[in-house]
């Protein structure tokens, strides 16, 4: 009885977090979170504003390093390797663990350059021909190629919001990441553009480990196979998405997803 319904068998753990605590100055934003991120499953982080889900997401590629007052304790590994080790090259880490933000933020350059920039500075392309291949492949994976192939040298900022967001996903993909973190990638998009991003997430699943932070619970239900509920800096519940949305085990999770507070 009570079998998880959408378990993907034989999942491979890509990242682990153990007893992670984050402080902004004196204020503790994350209170000891332990979680495994699977390679084959999309993981959604949900929770009310200020619950720490975005803060925690940002620990996974050390984005919090850019906040002067932030301090991270605990252990986070990528393929078993401690990402907070002093030997870790943070620039390299962020290529391996890419990020897509709430508001599409393409570079004020051409569509082509938006994609080519990363591979070029990371030395992933031998020449122009190589770069052309990477640009096409990345835009295809981002589901944008057919819409932009005839205007690759137009400005990326001239695209629609949804296209810009897919361009940003393409840009993250271009440097061959292993993990893609998405922080509310659809909150600035209309429903059609949102559906395209969700479809894209579905297509990218399995190729990259994907973690998405979303305020939209229906979106979490649609795109993820694992859902983690955060509240007041704690990880309250983590489980198979269909279980979380039909039969959550924690009272706080239930109250939140049924719209009783938050």
């Amino acid at each position, binding site marked *: *009885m*009570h079998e998880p319904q959408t378990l993907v068998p034989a999942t491979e753990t890509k990242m682990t977090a153990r007893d992670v605590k984050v402080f902004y100055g004196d204020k503790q934003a994350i209170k000891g979170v332990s979680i495994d991120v699977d390679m084959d499953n999309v993981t959604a982080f949900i929770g009310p504003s200020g619950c720490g889900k975005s803060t925690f997401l940002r620990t996974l590629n050390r984005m919090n390093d850019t906040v002067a007052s932030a301090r991270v304790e605990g252990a986070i590994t990528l393929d078993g390797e401690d990402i907070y080790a002093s030997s870790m090259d943070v620039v390299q880490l962020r290529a391996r663990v890419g990020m897509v933000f709430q508001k599409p933020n393409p570079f004020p350059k051409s569509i082509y350059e938006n994609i080519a920039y990363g591979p070029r500075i990371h030395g992933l392309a031998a020449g122009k021909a190589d770069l052309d291949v990477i640009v096409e492949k990345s835009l295809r994976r981002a589901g944008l190629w057919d819409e932009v192939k005839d205007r690759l040298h137009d400005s990326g900022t001239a695209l629609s919001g949804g296209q810009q967001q897919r361009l940003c996903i393409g840009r993250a993909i271009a440097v061959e990441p292993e993990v893609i973190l998405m922080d509310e990638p659809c909150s600035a998009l209309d429903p059609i553009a949102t559906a395209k991003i969700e479809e894209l997430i579905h297509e990218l699943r399995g190729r990259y480990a994907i973690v998405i932070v979303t305020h939209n619970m229906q979106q979490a239900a649609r795109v993820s196979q694992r859902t983690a509920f955060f509240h007041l800096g704690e990880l309250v519940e983590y489980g198979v998405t269909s279980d979380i949305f*039909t039969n959550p085990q924690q009272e706080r*999770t239930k109250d939140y997803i*049924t719209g009783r*507070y938050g």
Partner: protein
Amino acid sequence: MAEHTIKAFDEEIDKLRGLIAEMGGRAEAAIEHAMLALQRHDKTLAAQVVADDKRIDAIEAEVEKLVVEIIALRAPMANDLRDVIAALKIVSVVERIGDYAKNIAKRVPSIATNKRTLEPISLLPSMGQVAGEMVHDALNAFAARDADLALAVIERDAVVDDFYDSVFRTLVTYMVENPKTISECAHLLFIAKNIERIGDHATNVAEMVYYAATGLTLPDRERGGEQPLED
């Protein structure tokens, strides 16, 4: 339970639960009145049971409409979702229960309660009472989200099944001995079968209540209870 941030959602859920409570009360009354009409050979009461069934059918339609609206407009989750789905399934079962009571009432004019049918009729009121209580408790369990009460209902189905076996044997024996009563006894047999089915349906309601309350489905058991004797 805490209220929803959106108050209108609570009002809709309350309305839904109110309709189901009313429907359950009416089904329970229909069983009771049908059995009373049978015992007293009260054709007027029997006709009333048949007429009252229209309201039960109307409530089913009303609940279906409300559930579709809630799903479309509120996107219920977790226990809310389970409640709403259970409500949708429960009303179709209670509607069937109402139909069985109506069917019993419809047979009343064909059965003259007199000396010759007194004996085979004797077990039916008690059987009807147990089935009626099961319906009552199953719907109370829904109202109170009481999984234990739902389980108790499920267990009680065996009592109704035993009654049915007993009534069946009694009637067959009686018919063999009194061939002139076969027509009336055949009706009584159908009535017994109807009550037995009411017990099964109450069990189905209880299973849905259990799911709605706990999020768990009951371990393997034959859905709707075991079928006693030949069906």
